[in-house]
């Protein structure tokens, strides 16, 4: 049960840990754009080098960064197969009814899968190196312009950071309920699709009920500790960006630029 939860902050002392959270968020967005702009083999190779460098600098273990693979494996497979089967290509290798298997389709599938994997690795690194409240604060300050169209950015930031920190708790609970329902004869492992689908309901309903109960208790606990919305709270002073923050930002922008034009 005590495997490393996905998206957990891991306190550390690396260069990335010490970067301003706002910088990390912007750099993250830049890197995502880089991933989306990449679609060639050399492009992916250079992304791989970039990832390795990032993991090295942030001292995040590869195991942590790839922790999601296990739970997303099926999802990735489905994406790949769907793309392979349904991608409309000029020269299919073989065709049957509505299915066309083609090299182009396979390439497209691989493309999407690789993008998701890189995206997950980058977000793992972001989450592992940024404390949740720090991230919430960064989010709040980046969303500040939205205040002018009356969006409560403070509440939004708190909501997101609280929600994120409940992911491991809910996943543990899901696992527990799954086991409990298996013990009562639910057929999650069944090969027959009908039985598999029927077993989803007894899993989903308790999870939702549990989540609502947790939310209720958490809101009581937050209120008991004096939470009354985003206003009247201690405002973290806006710290100016330091040299290394600006450097990191420039690096991310440069990587994005080079990646987009070179490959």
């Amino acid at each position, binding site marked *: 049960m005590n495997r490393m939860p996905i998206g957990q902050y891991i*306190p550390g002392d690396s260069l990335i840990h010490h970067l301003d959270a706002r910088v990390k968020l912007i750099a993250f967005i830049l890197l995502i754009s880089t991933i989306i702009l990449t679609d060639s083999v050399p492009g992916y190779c250079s992304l791989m080098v970039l990832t390795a460098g990032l993991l090295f600098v942030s001292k995040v273990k590869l195991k942590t960064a790839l922790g999601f693979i296990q739970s997303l494996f099926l999802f990735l497979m489905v994406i790949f197969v769907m793309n392979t089967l349904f991608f409309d290509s000029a020269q299919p290798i073989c065709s049957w009814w509505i299915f066309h298997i083609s090299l182009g389709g396979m390439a497209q599938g691989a493309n999407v899968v690789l993008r998701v994997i890189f995206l997950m690795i980058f977000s793992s690194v972001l989450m592992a190196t940024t404390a949740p409240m720090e991230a919430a604060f960064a989010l709040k300050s980046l969303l500040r312009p939205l205040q002018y169209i009356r969006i409560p950015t403070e509440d939004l930031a708190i909501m997101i950071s609280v929600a994120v*920190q409940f992911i491991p708790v809910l996943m543990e609970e899901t696992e527990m309920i799954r086991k409990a329902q298996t013990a009562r004869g639910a057929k999650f492992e069944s090969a027959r699709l009908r039985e598999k689908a029927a077993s989803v309901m007894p899993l989903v309903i308790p999870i939702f009920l549990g989540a609502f109960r947790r939310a209720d208790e958490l809101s*009581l606990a937050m209120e008991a500790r004096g939470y009354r919305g985003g206003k009247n*709270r201690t405002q973290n002073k806006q710290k100016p960006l330091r040299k290394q923050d600006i450097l990191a930002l420039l690096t991310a922008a440069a990587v994005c630029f080079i990646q987009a034009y070179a490959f």
Partner: protein
Amino acid sequence: MLQNIQLVIDTAIADAYYMGKILYPENFKDIEPEKKINANHIPQTCGESENVSIFCDRVYWKAKTAMVMRSIDGKGISYSYAFEGSIDLSLDDVSICIAQGEMVAILGHNGSGKSTLVKHFDALLSLQKGSLKVAGLDANNTDRIWELRKKCGMVFQNPDNQFVSSIVDEDIAFGLENYDTPIEQIPSKVSEALALVGMSGFEKKSPHMLSGGQKQRIALASVLALEPEIIVFDESTAMLDPEGRKEVITTIRRLHDNEHKTIILISHYMEEAVFADRIYIMKNGRILAQGTPREILTDQVLLAEARLLPPLPVRIYYDLQKAGIILRHCPLTEEELVEELCRLN
């Protein structure tokens, strides 16, 4: 010298008398306030139980703190959860009075209304009927609700559902930030709160990686950071293993003894209530009885009526009595039981 001692005793007894009159009106109604109170009144004020040690407990508890301040002062509180027009009262005309620095246990069967009652203390439920003052603030006054919640902290049952951050120091800072604490003061307040629960050095840990007892102590530290006068524990030990329960109870007792916090403890475990100064027993939304642990926990009939099980030493006492072995006093703790058993020879 002798005169001084007499004076101290007289003051303590007079204090106890006035406090007793507030807390136990029925036992004190026969005594005129004008009469000079002296040690002769002790057996009478104890009512039927005629037990001097009970009164001494009260005097001790009374003399320990200046008991004029009342942390909780509630009269005629009634509450019903609206359920499709049903008018089942979860609380039915409850009056409760808790002195500053007192440790009070509220015991009761599931659904007896004890959780509903304490949710009023923190203004998490608004008063439907009756009056309630918490730390001198009117719980009905919605303008000062935030002041009230600062004075009265609350630790809940499930440790996992109380954390807003996955880092200990951020979670403790959450409460402080809600009260607009200057950012420079936050780190020192966080480490003070952690020291109070004996968990210094856990600032950068993740609550999810800690044991149940440690999680609850972190939740307690989050409450303590706001320096409340009253701390309510709403079955905070119910989900813990025996080891964690012991950790939390030891911490609670230390806060009561050293920090002089008013403690309100809701629990299923009679063994925890033994350490309280006073116990309230609730049943069906009413207060069934109140008194010192020695009065309440040794009363088999009363506990049976409230559908509670007496603590193990008390059960052993009565079982031995059935078997013809009579101990001199009914023991409350295991140590007392051992002592009594040794005295048999």
